[in-house]
Protein backbone atom coordinates (compact mmCIF):
# COMPACT_ATOMS: atom_id res chain seq x y z
CA UNK A 1 0.00 0.00 0.00
CA UNK A 2 0.90 3.61 0.08
CA UNK A 3 3.03 3.35 3.15
CA UNK A 4 5.25 0.62 1.75
CA UNK A 5 8.74 1.95 1.62
CA UNK A 6 9.18 1.17 -2.08
CA UNK A 7 6.00 2.84 -3.16
CA UNK A 8 4.66 6.30 -3.53
CA UNK A 9 1.17 7.58 -3.83
CA UNK A 10 0.46 8.49 -7.42
CA UNK A 11 -2.24 11.11 -7.39
CA UNK A 12 -3.70 12.91 -10.40
CA UNK A 13 -2.14 16.15 -9.19
CA UNK A 14 1.30 14.52 -9.04
CA UNK A 15 0.87 13.13 -12.55
CA UNK A 16 -0.11 16.56 -13.78
CA UNK A 17 2.79 18.32 -12.13
CA UNK A 18 5.18 15.77 -13.58
CA UNK A 19 3.67 15.81 -17.06
CA UNK A 20 3.24 19.54 -17.38
CA UNK A 21 6.27 20.87 -15.54
CA UNK A 22 8.79 18.59 -13.87
CA UNK A 23 9.02 16.08 -16.71
CA UNK A 24 7.83 18.29 -19.51
CA UNK A 25 7.92 16.15 -22.68
CA UNK A 26 9.69 18.70 -24.87
CA UNK A 27 11.91 20.62 -22.48
CA UNK A 28 12.93 17.81 -20.15
CA UNK A 29 12.34 14.49 -21.88
CA UNK A 30 13.42 15.90 -25.27
CA UNK A 31 10.65 14.18 -27.22
CA UNK A 32 8.35 15.59 -29.85
CA UNK A 33 10.75 18.38 -30.81
CA UNK A 34 10.01 18.51 -34.52
CA UNK A 35 6.83 20.63 -34.46
CA UNK A 36 8.17 22.92 -31.72
CA UNK A 37 11.40 23.57 -33.57
CA UNK A 38 10.22 24.04 -37.10
CA UNK A 39 6.49 24.61 -37.34
CA UNK A 40 5.57 26.73 -34.35
CA UNK A 41 6.44 30.17 -35.61
CA UNK A 42 2.80 31.20 -35.61
CA UNK A 43 0.27 31.08 -32.79
CA UNK A 44 -2.47 29.63 -34.99
CA UNK A 45 -0.29 26.79 -36.24
CA UNK A 46 0.85 26.16 -32.68
CA UNK A 47 -2.78 25.96 -31.56
CA UNK A 48 -3.63 23.48 -34.29
CA UNK A 49 -0.62 21.28 -33.57
CA UNK A 50 -1.35 21.46 -29.84
CA UNK A 51 -4.89 20.25 -30.35
CA UNK A 52 -3.69 17.40 -32.54
CA UNK A 53 -0.97 16.23 -30.15
CA UNK A 54 -3.32 16.43 -27.15
CA UNK A 55 -5.97 14.36 -28.89
CA UNK A 56 -3.38 11.94 -30.25
CA UNK A 57 -1.81 11.37 -26.85
CA UNK A 58 -5.15 10.70 -25.21
CA UNK A 59 -6.26 8.34 -27.97
CA UNK A 60 -2.99 6.40 -28.06
CA UNK A 61 -2.57 6.09 -24.31
CA UNK A 62 -6.17 4.99 -23.77
CA UNK A 63 -5.87 2.41 -26.55
CA UNK A 64 -2.51 1.21 -25.29
CA UNK A 65 -3.77 0.87 -21.75
CA UNK A 66 -7.05 -0.78 -22.65
CA UNK A 67 -6.11 -3.02 -25.55
CA UNK A 68 -2.41 -3.35 -26.23
CA UNK A 69 -0.82 -4.56 -23.02
CA UNK A 70 -0.34 -8.08 -24.31
CA UNK A 71 0.83 -7.15 -27.79
CA UNK A 72 4.48 -7.25 -28.90
CA UNK A 73 6.31 -3.96 -28.53
CA UNK A 74 7.10 -3.56 -32.23
CA UNK A 75 3.49 -4.21 -33.17
CA UNK A 76 2.42 -1.62 -30.62
CA UNK A 77 4.80 0.90 -32.16
CA UNK A 78 3.26 0.29 -35.56
CA UNK A 79 -0.22 0.67 -34.11
CA UNK A 80 0.66 3.98 -32.45
CA UNK A 81 1.86 5.18 -35.82
CA UNK A 82 -1.34 4.02 -37.51
CA UNK A 83 -3.44 5.80 -34.90
CA UNK A 84 -1.34 8.91 -35.39
CA UNK A 85 -1.75 8.55 -39.11
CA UNK A 86 -5.52 8.52 -38.87
CA UNK A 87 -5.62 11.51 -36.50
CA UNK A 88 -3.13 13.60 -38.44
CA UNK A 89 -4.74 12.79 -41.79
CA UNK A 90 -8.16 13.80 -40.52
CA UNK A 91 -6.67 16.95 -38.99
CA UNK A 92 -4.92 17.77 -42.26
CA UNK A 93 -8.10 17.27 -44.27
CA UNK A 94 -10.04 19.35 -41.76
CA UNK A 95 -7.46 22.13 -41.86
CA UNK A 96 -7.28 22.13 -45.65
CA UNK A 97 -11.04 22.41 -45.80
CA UNK A 98 -11.74 25.01 -43.12
CA UNK A 99 -8.48 26.82 -42.38
CA UNK A 100 -6.41 26.47 -45.54
CA UNK A 101 -4.12 29.35 -44.63
CA UNK A 102 -3.07 27.65 -41.39
CA UNK A 103 -2.78 24.27 -43.14
CA UNK A 104 -0.54 25.88 -45.72
CA UNK A 105 1.64 27.46 -43.03
CA UNK A 106 1.89 24.20 -41.10
CA UNK A 107 2.98 22.42 -44.29
CA UNK A 108 4.17 18.86 -43.81
CA UNK A 109 4.49 19.27 -40.06
CA UNK A 110 0.80 18.60 -39.51
CA UNK A 111 0.92 15.17 -41.22
CA UNK A 112 4.20 14.48 -39.42
CA UNK A 113 2.39 14.48 -36.09
CA UNK A 114 1.61 10.86 -36.96
CA UNK A 115 5.22 9.98 -36.25
CA UNK A 116 5.48 12.05 -33.10
CA UNK A 117 7.79 10.36 -30.65
CA UNK A 118 5.81 11.81 -27.77
CA UNK A 119 2.83 9.54 -28.28
CA UNK A 120 4.82 6.36 -28.80
CA UNK A 121 7.17 6.93 -25.89
CA UNK A 122 4.50 7.90 -23.39
CA UNK A 123 2.47 4.85 -24.36
CA UNK A 124 5.45 2.51 -23.96
CA UNK A 125 6.51 4.34 -20.88
CA UNK A 126 3.35 4.59 -18.98
CA UNK A 127 0.13 3.49 -20.63
CA UNK A 128 0.98 -0.16 -21.27
CA UNK A 129 1.86 -0.55 -17.61
CA UNK A 130 -0.97 1.37 -16.04
CA UNK A 131 -4.72 1.55 -15.68
CA UNK A 132 -6.89 3.41 -18.15
CA UNK A 133 -7.66 6.11 -15.61
CA UNK A 134 -4.02 6.89 -14.89
CA UNK A 135 -3.15 6.69 -18.57
CA UNK A 136 -5.76 9.30 -19.29
CA UNK A 137 -4.29 11.59 -16.64
CA UNK A 138 -0.81 11.04 -18.02
CA UNK A 139 -1.91 11.69 -21.59
CA UNK A 140 -3.73 14.86 -20.60
CA UNK A 141 -0.78 16.08 -18.52
CA UNK A 142 1.81 15.41 -21.19
CA UNK A 143 -0.49 16.79 -23.87
CA UNK A 144 -0.97 19.98 -21.90
CA UNK A 145 2.76 20.16 -21.16
CA UNK A 146 3.56 19.82 -24.85
CA UNK A 147 0.84 22.24 -25.84
CA UNK A 148 2.03 24.92 -23.45
CA UNK A 149 5.52 24.78 -24.91
CA UNK A 150 4.19 24.84 -28.47
CA UNK A 151 1.93 27.81 -27.73
CA UNK A 152 4.65 29.71 -25.91
CA UNK A 153 7.20 29.20 -28.67
CA UNK A 154 4.57 29.95 -31.29
CA UNK A 155 3.63 33.18 -29.57
CA UNK A 156 7.17 34.46 -29.02
CA UNK A 157 8.51 33.37 -32.41
CA UNK A 158 5.48 34.82 -34.14
CA UNK A 159 5.86 38.09 -32.29
CA UNK A 160 9.62 38.54 -32.61
CA UNK A 161 10.34 36.44 -35.69
CA UNK A 162 7.45 37.49 -37.89
CA UNK A 163 6.14 40.55 -36.08
CA UNK A 164 2.61 39.28 -35.75
CA UNK A 165 0.31 37.67 -33.23
CA UNK A 166 -1.97 35.62 -35.41
CA UNK A 167 -3.51 38.05 -37.85
CA UNK A 168 -2.54 41.16 -35.91
CA UNK A 169 0.55 42.95 -37.11
CA UNK A 170 2.51 44.18 -34.09
CA UNK A 171 5.79 45.11 -35.76
CA UNK A 172 6.02 46.29 -39.35
CA UNK A 173 9.46 44.75 -39.50
CA UNK A 174 10.18 41.64 -37.45
CA UNK A 175 12.67 42.48 -34.66
CA UNK A 176 14.50 39.13 -34.88
CA UNK A 177 13.49 37.50 -38.14
CA UNK A 178 15.83 34.56 -37.58
CA UNK A 179 13.61 33.35 -34.76
CA UNK A 180 11.06 32.14 -37.28
CA UNK A 181 13.60 29.71 -38.70
CA UNK A 182 14.30 26.26 -37.20
CA UNK A 183 17.40 27.43 -35.35
CA UNK A 184 15.18 30.04 -33.73
CA UNK A 185 13.07 27.16 -32.47
CA UNK A 186 16.08 25.53 -30.86
CA UNK A 187 17.10 28.84 -29.29
CA UNK A 188 13.59 29.30 -27.93
CA UNK A 189 13.60 25.79 -26.49
CA UNK A 190 16.97 26.41 -24.86
CA UNK A 191 15.78 29.54 -23.09
CA UNK A 192 12.42 27.96 -22.29
CA UNK A 193 14.18 25.00 -20.67
CA UNK A 194 16.30 27.35 -18.58
CA UNK A 195 13.16 29.26 -17.61
CA UNK A 196 11.44 26.04 -16.61
CA UNK A 197 14.47 25.04 -14.59
CA UNK A 198 14.34 28.31 -12.71
CA UNK A 199 10.59 27.94 -12.18
CA UNK A 200 10.89 24.46 -10.72
CA UNK A 201 13.75 25.33 -8.42
CA UNK A 202 11.95 28.46 -7.25
CA UNK A 203 8.31 27.50 -6.97
CA UNK A 204 8.32 23.70 -6.93
CA UNK A 205 11.34 23.07 -4.79
CA UNK A 206 9.73 19.90 -3.41
CA UNK A 207 10.04 18.41 -6.86
CA UNK A 208 13.46 19.78 -7.69
CA UNK A 209 15.14 16.53 -6.65
CA UNK A 210 13.08 14.78 -9.33
CA UNK A 211 13.78 17.22 -12.10
CA UNK A 212 16.21 16.05 -14.69
CA UNK A 213 18.21 19.13 -15.54
CA UNK A 214 20.84 18.07 -13.11
CA UNK A 215 20.56 20.52 -10.23
CA UNK A 216 20.15 19.15 -6.73
CA UNK A 217 20.45 15.72 -8.13
CA UNK A 218 22.51 13.30 -6.10
CA UNK A 219 25.02 11.34 -8.07
CA UNK A 220 24.18 7.76 -7.32
CA UNK A 221 26.22 4.79 -8.26
CA UNK A 222 24.37 2.65 -10.71
CA UNK A 223 23.90 -0.99 -9.87
CA UNK A 224 25.09 -3.51 -12.43
CA UNK A 225 22.75 -4.05 -15.33
CA UNK A 226 20.09 -6.67 -14.90
CA UNK A 227 18.84 -8.52 -17.90
CA UNK A 228 15.97 -10.09 -16.00
CA UNK A 229 13.87 -8.65 -13.23
CA UNK A 230 15.06 -9.48 -9.76
CA UNK A 231 12.86 -11.72 -7.65
CA UNK A 232 10.06 -10.00 -5.87
CA UNK A 233 10.73 -9.04 -2.30
CA UNK A 234 7.96 -8.15 -0.04
CA UNK A 235 8.70 -4.98 1.79
CA UNK A 236 7.69 -4.67 5.35
CA UNK A 237 5.30 -1.86 6.03
CA UNK A 238 6.89 1.05 7.79
CA UNK A 239 5.52 4.04 9.50
CA UNK A 240 4.40 6.78 7.20
CA UNK A 241 6.84 9.24 8.70
CA UNK A 242 9.71 6.91 7.98
CA UNK A 243 9.07 6.58 4.27
CA UNK A 244 11.38 9.35 3.21
CA UNK A 245 14.25 8.10 5.32
CA UNK A 246 14.10 4.52 4.08
CA UNK A 247 16.18 3.40 1.12
CA UNK A 248 14.08 2.67 -1.90
CA UNK A 249 14.04 -0.92 -3.03
CA UNK A 250 13.73 -1.09 -6.76
CA UNK A 251 13.21 -4.75 -7.17
CA UNK A 252 9.68 -5.31 -8.14
CA UNK A 253 8.31 -5.11 -11.65
CA UNK A 254 5.03 -3.41 -12.28
CA UNK A 255 2.61 -4.28 -9.52
CA UNK A 256 -0.37 -2.11 -9.81
CA UNK A 257 -3.10 -2.21 -7.26
CA UNK A 258 -6.30 -0.59 -8.23
CA UNK A 259 -8.17 1.16 -5.51
CA UNK A 260 -11.70 2.43 -5.63
CA UNK A 261 -11.88 6.05 -6.61
CA UNK A 262 -12.48 8.29 -3.66
CA UNK A 263 -13.18 11.94 -3.53
CA UNK A 264 -9.78 13.05 -2.23
CA UNK A 265 -7.18 11.92 -2.72
CA UNK A 266 -7.50 9.64 -5.72
CA UNK A 267 -4.59 7.33 -5.16
CA UNK A 268 -2.98 4.40 -6.78
CA UNK A 269 0.12 2.68 -5.56
CA UNK A 270 2.81 2.02 -8.07
CA UNK A 271 6.41 1.11 -8.20
CA UNK A 272 8.50 4.26 -7.90
CA UNK A 273 10.65 3.17 -10.82
CA UNK A 274 7.74 3.92 -13.08
CA UNK A 275 7.43 7.46 -11.92
CA UNK A 276 10.87 8.92 -11.59
CA UNK A 277 13.37 9.10 -14.36
CA UNK A 278 16.28 8.65 -12.07
CA UNK A 279 15.40 5.22 -10.81
CA UNK A 280 14.54 4.00 -14.24
CA UNK A 281 17.85 5.30 -15.47
CA UNK A 282 19.79 3.45 -12.85
CA UNK A 283 18.34 0.18 -14.02
CA UNK A 284 19.76 0.65 -17.47
CA UNK A 285 22.82 -0.98 -18.76
CA UNK A 286 25.22 1.51 -20.30
CA UNK A 287 24.97 -0.34 -23.60
CA UNK A 288 21.24 -0.55 -23.42
CA UNK A 289 20.67 2.79 -25.00
CA UNK A 290 17.91 1.75 -27.35
CA UNK A 291 15.87 0.47 -24.48
CA UNK A 292 16.54 3.74 -22.73
CA UNK A 293 15.13 5.61 -25.66
CA UNK A 294 12.20 3.27 -25.90
CA UNK A 295 11.41 3.74 -22.27
CA UNK A 296 11.58 7.48 -22.69
CA UNK A 297 11.89 7.84 -18.97
CA UNK A 298 15.50 8.88 -19.04
CA UNK A 299 15.73 12.57 -19.51
CA UNK A 300 18.39 14.09 -21.63
CA UNK A 301 20.45 15.05 -18.64
CA UNK A 302 20.68 11.37 -17.80
CA UNK A 303 22.30 10.81 -21.17
CA UNK A 304 24.93 13.36 -20.25
CA UNK A 305 25.53 11.38 -17.09
CA UNK A 306 26.05 8.29 -19.18
CA UNK A 307 28.71 10.06 -21.18
CA UNK A 308 30.53 10.88 -17.97
CA UNK A 309 30.16 7.29 -16.86
CA UNK A 310 31.55 5.98 -20.14
CA UNK A 311 34.45 8.39 -19.88
CA UNK A 312 35.19 7.25 -16.33
CA UNK A 313 35.03 3.63 -17.43
CA UNK A 314 37.43 4.24 -20.28
CA UNK A 315 39.81 6.06 -17.95
CA UNK A 316 39.67 3.23 -15.46
CA UNK A 317 40.44 0.75 -18.20
Amino acid at each position, binding site marked *: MANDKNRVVLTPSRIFIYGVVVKNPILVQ*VIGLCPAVAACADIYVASLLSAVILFLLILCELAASALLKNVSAWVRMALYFVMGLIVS*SLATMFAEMYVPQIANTAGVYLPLMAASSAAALRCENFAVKKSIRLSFYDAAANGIGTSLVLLFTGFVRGLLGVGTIGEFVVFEKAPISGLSMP*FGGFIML*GFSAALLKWFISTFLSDYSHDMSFGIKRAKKKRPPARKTPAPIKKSKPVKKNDVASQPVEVNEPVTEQEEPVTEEPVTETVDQTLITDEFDLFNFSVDDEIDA*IMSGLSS*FDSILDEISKEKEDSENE
Partner: protein
Amino acid sequence: MSSLVTFLETALYMIFVQNLVFSGGYGSSEAIRMSAKPKRFVPFSIMITYFSTLTAFVCRLLDNIDAVDSLGLGFHTLIFGAVLVVIFIFTVLLCKILLSPNQKFYSTISIAALNTLVFAVPLINRQAGFSLIQSVGTGIGSGLSFIIALFLINTGLRRLENNTNIPPLFKGTPAVFLYVAMLSIAFAGLSGRSLFA
Protein backbone atom coordinates in the same frame (compact mmCIF):
# COMPACT_ATOMS: atom_id res chain seq x y z
CA MET B 1 25.30 9.46 -66.48
CA SER B 2 23.02 12.44 -66.00
CA SER B 3 20.84 10.32 -63.70
CA LEU B 4 23.85 9.54 -61.55
CA VAL B 5 24.77 13.21 -61.39
CA THR B 6 21.21 14.11 -60.46
CA PHE B 7 21.18 11.43 -57.78
CA LEU B 8 24.49 12.56 -56.28
CA GLU B 9 23.52 16.19 -56.50
CA THR B 10 20.31 15.62 -54.58
CA ALA B 11 21.98 13.40 -51.99
CA LEU B 12 24.76 15.92 -51.36
CA TYR B 13 22.23 18.73 -51.20
CA MET B 14 20.30 16.85 -48.51
CA ILE B 15 23.44 16.04 -46.56
CA PHE B 16 25.17 19.39 -46.47
CA VAL B 17 22.87 22.16 -47.59
CA GLN B 18 19.46 21.01 -46.45
CA ASN B 19 20.37 18.76 -43.53
CA LEU B 20 16.94 17.64 -42.42
CA VAL B 21 17.80 17.45 -38.73
CA PHE B 22 19.21 20.97 -38.46
CA SER B 23 17.38 22.76 -41.25
CA GLY B 24 13.96 21.28 -40.62
CA GLY B 25 14.04 19.77 -37.15
CA TYR B 26 13.02 16.38 -38.58
CA GLY B 27 14.05 13.54 -36.30
CA SER B 28 15.71 15.99 -33.94
CA SER B 29 14.43 14.17 -30.84
CA GLU B 30 15.97 10.91 -32.01
CA ALA B 31 19.17 12.64 -33.10
CA ILE B 32 19.73 14.40 -29.78
CA ARG B 33 18.88 11.39 -27.67
CA MET B 34 20.84 8.98 -29.84
CA SER B 35 23.86 11.25 -30.11
CA ALA B 36 25.16 10.13 -26.74
CA LYS B 37 25.45 6.56 -27.99
CA PRO B 38 28.33 6.38 -30.47
CA LYS B 39 28.21 2.59 -30.62
CA ARG B 40 24.74 2.77 -32.12
CA PHE B 41 25.40 5.51 -34.67
CA VAL B 42 26.10 3.32 -37.65
CA PRO B 43 23.44 0.59 -37.28
CA PHE B 44 20.76 3.12 -36.42
CA SER B 45 21.70 5.37 -39.32
CA ILE B 46 21.78 2.43 -41.73
CA MET B 47 18.27 1.51 -40.67
CA ILE B 48 17.08 5.09 -41.11
CA THR B 49 18.71 5.27 -44.54
CA TYR B 50 17.12 1.96 -45.55
CA PHE B 51 13.63 3.01 -44.50
CA SER B 52 13.82 6.53 -45.86
CA THR B 53 15.17 5.38 -49.23
CA LEU B 54 12.73 2.53 -49.70
CA THR B 55 9.76 4.60 -48.55
CA ALA B 56 10.75 7.50 -50.79
CA PHE B 57 11.13 5.13 -53.75
CA VAL B 58 7.79 3.36 -53.30
CA CYS B 59 5.89 6.56 -52.56
CA ARG B 60 7.32 8.25 -55.64
CA LEU B 61 6.25 5.27 -57.73
CA LEU B 62 2.76 5.56 -56.33
CA ASP B 63 2.72 9.26 -57.12
CA ASN B 64 3.20 8.38 -60.77
CA ILE B 65 -0.38 7.13 -60.71
CA ASP B 66 -2.60 10.06 -61.68
CA ALA B 67 -5.36 9.09 -59.25
CA VAL B 68 -2.90 9.21 -56.35
CA ASP B 69 -1.08 12.29 -57.54
CA SER B 70 -4.28 14.31 -57.68
CA LEU B 71 -5.14 13.66 -54.02
CA GLY B 72 -4.64 16.26 -51.32
CA LEU B 73 -2.09 16.26 -48.53
CA GLY B 74 -4.41 14.49 -46.10
CA PHE B 75 -4.85 11.47 -48.36
CA HIS B 76 -1.17 11.48 -49.24
CA THR B 77 -0.41 11.32 -45.54
CA LEU B 78 -2.56 8.21 -45.26
CA ILE B 79 -1.04 6.55 -48.32
CA PHE B 80 2.58 7.36 -47.53
CA GLY B 81 2.08 6.35 -43.92
CA ALA B 82 0.55 3.07 -44.99
CA VAL B 83 3.53 2.45 -47.26
CA LEU B 84 5.91 3.07 -44.38
CA VAL B 85 3.99 0.74 -42.08
CA VAL B 86 3.94 -2.02 -44.69
CA ILE B 87 7.69 -1.66 -45.30
CA PHE B 88 8.29 -1.70 -41.57
CA ILE B 89 6.21 -4.83 -40.97
CA PHE B 90 7.72 -6.57 -44.00
CA THR B 91 11.25 -5.76 -42.81
CA VAL B 92 10.59 -6.92 -39.27
CA LEU B 93 9.06 -10.18 -40.43
CA LEU B 94 11.92 -10.74 -42.85
CA CYS B 95 14.46 -10.13 -40.11
CA LYS B 96 12.51 -12.38 -37.78
CA ILE B 97 12.72 -15.24 -40.25
CA LEU B 98 16.29 -14.72 -41.40
CA LEU B 99 18.10 -13.34 -38.36
CA SER B 100 16.11 -14.33 -35.27
CA PRO B 101 17.11 -11.06 -33.60
CA ASN B 102 16.81 -10.21 -29.93
CA GLN B 103 14.29 -7.85 -28.37
CA LYS B 104 16.65 -4.89 -28.58
CA PHE B 105 16.70 -5.18 -32.35
CA TYR B 106 12.94 -4.75 -32.53
CA SER B 107 13.14 -1.64 -30.37
CA THR B 108 15.87 -0.21 -32.56
CA ILE B 109 14.14 -0.90 -35.81
CA SER B 110 10.84 0.51 -34.52
CA ILE B 111 12.44 3.82 -33.59
CA ALA B 112 14.47 3.95 -36.78
CA ALA B 113 11.46 3.34 -39.01
CA LEU B 114 8.66 5.27 -37.40
CA ASN B 115 10.02 8.75 -36.86
CA THR B 116 9.48 12.16 -38.38
CA LEU B 117 12.67 12.07 -40.45
CA VAL B 118 11.75 8.94 -42.38
CA PHE B 119 8.12 9.95 -42.79
CA ALA B 120 9.07 13.46 -43.90
CA VAL B 121 11.14 12.30 -46.87
CA PRO B 122 8.29 11.22 -49.20
CA LEU B 123 6.24 14.25 -48.19
CA ILE B 124 9.15 16.58 -48.97
CA ASN B 125 9.78 14.81 -52.27
CA ARG B 126 6.20 15.37 -53.27
CA GLN B 127 6.24 18.99 -52.14
CA ALA B 128 9.44 19.65 -54.09
CA GLY B 129 8.24 17.73 -57.14
CA PHE B 130 11.31 15.48 -57.18
CA SER B 131 11.74 12.78 -59.78
CA LEU B 132 12.28 9.12 -58.93
CA ILE B 133 16.07 9.46 -59.03
CA GLN B 134 15.95 12.59 -56.93
CA SER B 135 13.62 10.89 -54.45
CA VAL B 136 16.07 8.04 -53.96
CA GLY B 137 18.86 10.60 -53.57
CA THR B 138 16.81 12.39 -50.93
CA GLY B 139 16.22 9.14 -49.07
CA ILE B 140 19.89 8.21 -48.97
CA GLY B 141 20.94 11.79 -48.29
CA SER B 142 18.60 12.13 -45.35
CA GLY B 143 19.99 8.96 -43.77
CA LEU B 144 23.55 10.17 -44.21
CA SER B 145 22.64 13.62 -42.93
CA PHE B 146 21.31 11.96 -39.80
CA ILE B 147 24.64 10.32 -39.03
CA ILE B 148 26.45 13.64 -39.59
CA ALA B 149 24.02 15.24 -37.16
CA LEU B 150 24.74 12.50 -34.64
CA PHE B 151 28.50 13.02 -34.86
CA LEU B 152 28.22 16.79 -34.57
CA ILE B 153 25.87 16.70 -31.61
CA ASN B 154 27.90 14.00 -29.90
CA THR B 155 31.05 16.09 -30.17
CA GLY B 156 29.26 19.03 -28.62
CA LEU B 157 27.79 16.97 -25.80
CA ARG B 158 31.21 15.87 -24.64
CA ARG B 159 32.47 19.45 -24.65
CA LEU B 160 29.38 20.75 -22.89
CA GLU B 161 29.73 18.11 -20.21
CA ASN B 162 33.27 19.23 -19.44
CA ASN B 163 32.56 22.94 -19.69
CA THR B 164 32.51 24.52 -16.25
CA ASN B 165 31.74 28.00 -17.57
CA ILE B 166 28.13 27.22 -18.38
CA PRO B 167 25.80 28.97 -15.90
CA PRO B 168 24.01 26.47 -13.65
CA LEU B 169 20.62 27.45 -15.05
CA PHE B 170 21.73 26.46 -18.54
CA LYS B 171 23.47 23.22 -17.62
CA GLY B 172 21.96 20.13 -19.20
CA THR B 173 19.09 20.35 -21.63
CA PRO B 174 19.11 24.16 -22.15
CA ALA B 175 22.77 24.15 -23.18
CA VAL B 176 22.21 21.26 -25.55
CA PHE B 177 19.29 23.02 -27.24
CA LEU B 178 21.39 26.14 -27.69
CA TYR B 179 24.30 24.12 -29.03
CA VAL B 180 22.04 22.45 -31.59
CA ALA B 181 20.75 25.91 -32.46
CA MET B 182 24.33 26.96 -33.29
CA LEU B 183 24.71 23.95 -35.57
CA SER B 184 21.38 24.78 -37.14
CA ILE B 185 22.54 28.34 -37.80
CA ALA B 186 25.66 26.97 -39.49
CA PHE B 187 23.62 24.77 -41.82
CA ALA B 188 21.15 27.58 -42.48
CA GLY B 189 24.14 29.70 -43.47
CA LEU B 190 25.24 27.02 -45.91
CA SER B 191 21.88 27.26 -47.63
CA GLY B 192 22.68 30.89 -48.46
CA ARG B 193 19.64 32.34 -46.78
CA SER B 194 19.74 35.63 -44.96
CA LEU B 195 19.47 34.75 -41.30
CA PHE B 196 18.75 38.10 -39.70
CA ALA B 197 17.30 40.36 -42.35
